[in-house]
């Protein structure tokens, strides 16, 4: 068992609400350590107390636990360093878009607001308006596309 095997396994764990994007591409994985049959995985929560954290922890334990010779998996959530939306990879951004969620701009918490001309994930038009700074989950905001008349969500810059 090598660290790379663990990263490969983590690449199969998806956000419980967004089945197209892995936790690796969301930038949740901070570090992986292997020692003998023991694996330690440090994750960064997107938001403190996000209800998905326990689900993700169990999925990580399951996925890493299937690697041969792994005897024990310890998953820790760290509040420092703080997760930032800038940690989402290019692949992750494309996967969010494909799922219908506009990706966050690459400016982290310094992003000027509100995001103007956000491309609609459904039709690509930039004739979009911010409907609400808050959305169905704490990491998302709601936009409306005037071109295809669909509401859509966008990941917050944090």
């Amino acid at each position: 068992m090598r660290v790379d095997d663990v990263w490969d396994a983590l690449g199969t764990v998806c956000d419980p609400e967004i089945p197209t994007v892995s936790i690796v591409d969301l930038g949740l994985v901070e570090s992986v350590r292997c020692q003998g049959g023991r694996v330690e995985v440090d994750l960064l929560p997107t938001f403190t107390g996000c209800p998905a954290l326990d689900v993700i922890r169990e999925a990580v334990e399951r996925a890493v636990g299937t690697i041969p010779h792994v005897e024990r998996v310890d998953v820790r959530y760290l509040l420092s360093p703080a997760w930032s939306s800038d940690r989402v990879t290019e692949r992750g951004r494309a996967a969010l878009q494909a799922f219908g969620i506009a990706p966050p701009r690459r400016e982290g918490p310094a992003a000027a607001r509100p995001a103007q001309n956000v491309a609609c994930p459904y039709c690509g038009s930039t004739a979009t308006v911010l409907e609400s700074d808050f959305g169905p989950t704490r990491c998302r905001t709601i936009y409306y596309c005037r071109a295809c008349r669909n509401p859509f969500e966008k990941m917050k810059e944090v």
Partner: protein
Amino acid sequence: MNAALRHLLLCLADDELVLGHRDSEWTAFAPFIEEDVAMASIAQDEISHASVFFNLLKDLGGDDPDRLAFLRDAPEFRNARLLERPNGDWAYTVVRHFLYDLFDDLRLDALAASSCRELAQVVDRLRREERYHLMHGRAWVARLAGAEGEARSRFETALEAVLADVPGLFEMTALDRAATEAGFFPGGAAGLASAWAERAREELAPFGLAERVPGAASLLAVAGGEAPRPEALGGREGAHTEDLDRLLGALGEVYRSDPQAAW
């Protein structure tokens, strides 16, 4: 564990927990659907932040977070009284939240330099979430204070009521002073009064309301008990109003019905 550090973490956790619960009371009653979503989301943020502080307390040798959140009675709570007041109308809710969020932002900024490393480390994480609360509050201040008629007059009434309680945020008990001296909270809450007054005036100036905000000297005189406004004070020592009793009754009702239940 260190009594001053425990006190500081309780002040932080209780402020967020109590306000978060008040926010949650708007669920299904906010003026329109987007605000319902916003208030529910903000409530989740505040209660999560309370849980961060409770868990920090536990890691440093303190009590069980669930017991602290659900089983304490009002005299054990350390939140400022401002935060336990009922929500009142939408204007009061907006003004209280925004003026508290300005204070909270300054407080978190000061705590980034805390001598308690574990506390200093969580600040960046929390501020990234709080930024959205400030944006939300600012937008509503502009909507209400920038309007005419009923919206504006309700805003002014709310501002007066909130400002009367604001000195409670700067109250310093013996434990607060000990936490300041130990470097757990550099400068302490009282040290934020002039920066808070400046920021609050800046935010309200475009609406001709800057002069309503008392200066730091006046805030600290009230916070120090020199001015006759005792009803704003006492929260940091556990002296609360019946409003908090009622709030805690609702907050802990389910947990208290079966403290052994597995969730």
